[in-house]
């Protein structure tokens, strides 16, 4: 990785952090409704893994799918940030035309196949995306990001089994942040090392890594992505990470201590990379300041402005998108009487 790439990745992570912070502010201003799950703290995982995959190239790229904490995965996959913000504002210009909201970002032009609110549901959907890629011999893979909490769903076990039996090209990325909503992994999960839950049980290659240092994430992800693509087999990769904010906006984090939070913040992914790049002379403090100013400007004057000024969906379109809006009469009818 060259210096320009390192600087770009630092900028991306600062952008994602600021984007999520701005979502928080908009939520407090009641511009955003519903549930809002923010990714702050975990940026190195989505950024690092997808940096090693074939994303941002449109429909020829790899497929990405995740749960409800989905803004950053969608952006790194190539979904325009302003459309994501417009979606959070419920606008017609949003990624999902204002019908999905924060938890359901979709952008098929970036092969980002959705955020889902049912914990564990993306496992089989991801395996299905991979099955489609394999069937069509496209050399694409599917990448599924979920938290450690999802691994206690039946879909985890069912899907790990089928992905392995059928040799599906899918990379399961476990973002282990230690909490299933507000229940600590020690209290919910018999085997705390998630990567150990698939190796002998489902005969699947797996590994565990630091999820706060993006360079470690990228090195591990590259091996995993290459394995999945070359061997056409699934791989399960676990990253140890931490989410700074609550599970969602309604979460007061009463289940964990300030000391624990402070420990993890010492290993903040943006901080780790910033310090490393400053020390190596790749970036200067004033460049970072300039980056932050540019990001602030982009978020306020382009992204938020776009979301604010975009139109609401038309009420007359309430039932649009339920079924195919232009169905073929040969299959649908009417019945000839």
């Amino acid at each position: 990785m060259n210096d320009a790439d390192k600087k770009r990745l630092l900028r991306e992570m600062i952008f994602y952090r600021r984007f999520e912070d701005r979502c928080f502010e908009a939520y407090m201003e009641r511009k955003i409704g519903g549930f809002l799950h923010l990714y702050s703290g975990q940026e190195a995982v989505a950024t690092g893994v997808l940096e090693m995959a074939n994303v941002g190239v449109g429909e020829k790229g790899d497929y990405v799918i995740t749960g409800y904490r989905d803004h950053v995965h969608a952006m790194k996959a190539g979904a325009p940030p302003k459309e994501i913000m417009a979606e959070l504002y419920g606008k017609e210009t949003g990624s999902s035309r204002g019908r999905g909201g924060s938890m359901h970002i979709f952008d098929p032009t970036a092969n980002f196949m959705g955020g889902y609110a049912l914990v564990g549901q993306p496992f089989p959907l991801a395996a299905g995306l991979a099955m489609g890629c394999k069937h069509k011999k496209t050399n694409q893979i599917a990448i599924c990001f979920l938290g450690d909490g999802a691994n206690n769903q039946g879909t985890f076990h069912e899907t790990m089994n089928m992905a392995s039996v059928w040799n599906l090209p899918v990379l399961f990325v476990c973002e282990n942040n230690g909490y299933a909503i507000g229940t600590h992994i020690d209290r919910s999960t018999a085997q705390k090392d998630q990567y150990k839950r698939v190796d002998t049980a489902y005969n699947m290659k797996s590994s565990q890594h630091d999820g706060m240092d993006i360079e470690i994430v990228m090195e591990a992800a590259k091996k995993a992505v290459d394995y999945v693509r070359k061997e056409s087999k699934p791989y399960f990769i676990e990253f140890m990470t931490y989410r700074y904010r609550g599970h969602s906006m309604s979460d007061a984090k009463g289940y964990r201590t300030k000391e624990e939070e402070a420990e993890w913040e010492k290993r903040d992914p943006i901080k780790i990379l910033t310090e490393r790049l400053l020390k190596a002379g790749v970036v200067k403090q004033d460049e970072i300041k300039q980056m932050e100013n540019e990001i602030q400007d982009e978020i306020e004057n382009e992204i938020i402005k776009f979301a604010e000024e975009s139109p609401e969906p038309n009420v007359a379109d309430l039932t649009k998108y339920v079924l195919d809006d232009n169905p073929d009469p040969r299959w649908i009818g009417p019945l000839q009487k």
Partner: protein
Amino acid sequence: MSEIAYWEAIRRAHDEEMANDPLVIAMGEDIGVAGGTYKATLGLYDKYGEARVIDTPISENSYTGIGIGASMVGMRPIIEIMSINFALLALDTLVNAAAKIRYMSGGRVSCPIVMRTPGGTAHQLAAQHSARLARMFMSTSGLRVVTPRGPIDAYGMLKSAVRCNDPVIIIEHERMYNLKEEVPDEEFFRPLEGAEVVRVGEDITLIGYNFSVHLCLEAAKRLEADGISAEVVDLRVLKPIDRETIRRSVEKTHRVLIAEEDEAPVGVGAEIITGIMEDCFFALDSQPVRIHAADVPVPYNHTLEKEAIPDVDDVYQGALKALGKI
């Protein structure tokens, strides 16, 4: 024309659609090497191979979810679930995913899957193999639900379902797989919308779907012997309901009965009768009659099972009641 059984019609539709489009695949328990519990995919494993006729583990929710995921990237999966009871395990992926992905993506991603399953009572299969859950799927936005009454619809509606861009639930019936009918030899399609008048009459409308259409047709014969002319309407499709065909028939006959094999509370009949009340209340000369299963888990004992499930005599007696004859 050839006389073929319901299962052969389904098998023929699979075969033709798989030959027509390499993106069509079939998935389910024992559908490949074993040929399918109801023979709906017999011989197709040998013809199309294990990558397209996929024997799944007993993991209904996730293999259905895998089919849904594959459909999101252009595949056309036909997913068999061996009994509608087992479809309860797949409700998360069917109801929370397939039915909602198109809407919550603002129309940008669709899930063109077909899920086929037998949903009805057979003979002494007891409570966990006799569910009739049509009413549950018909109350889910984002699905199409169809109930072919015979080989022509079983063939033609499956072919349409494979090509349609929406998720389609096809509810078949254990007691119909061997039912035979003359079916045209050339390819045809049957639409996924529209009820059908399958017998023309003047005095009463008998409405059925799936197996209960046959109960209505048999009851109509008995009524004819009594000098009563019954019209029989096959709903064919439970979502969306064709209220116009029902209204036209009721405005002609002024009396109506709906026969369903489901339990009554919040059932298909409740929905149909509500529609009649809203559309043509003043056309009625008597109160509508609902024939339905008893509100019990289906018993194993033969006599109790017979008592729990509607038969031709129940429909016949119900019609006499609607006609004011008893």
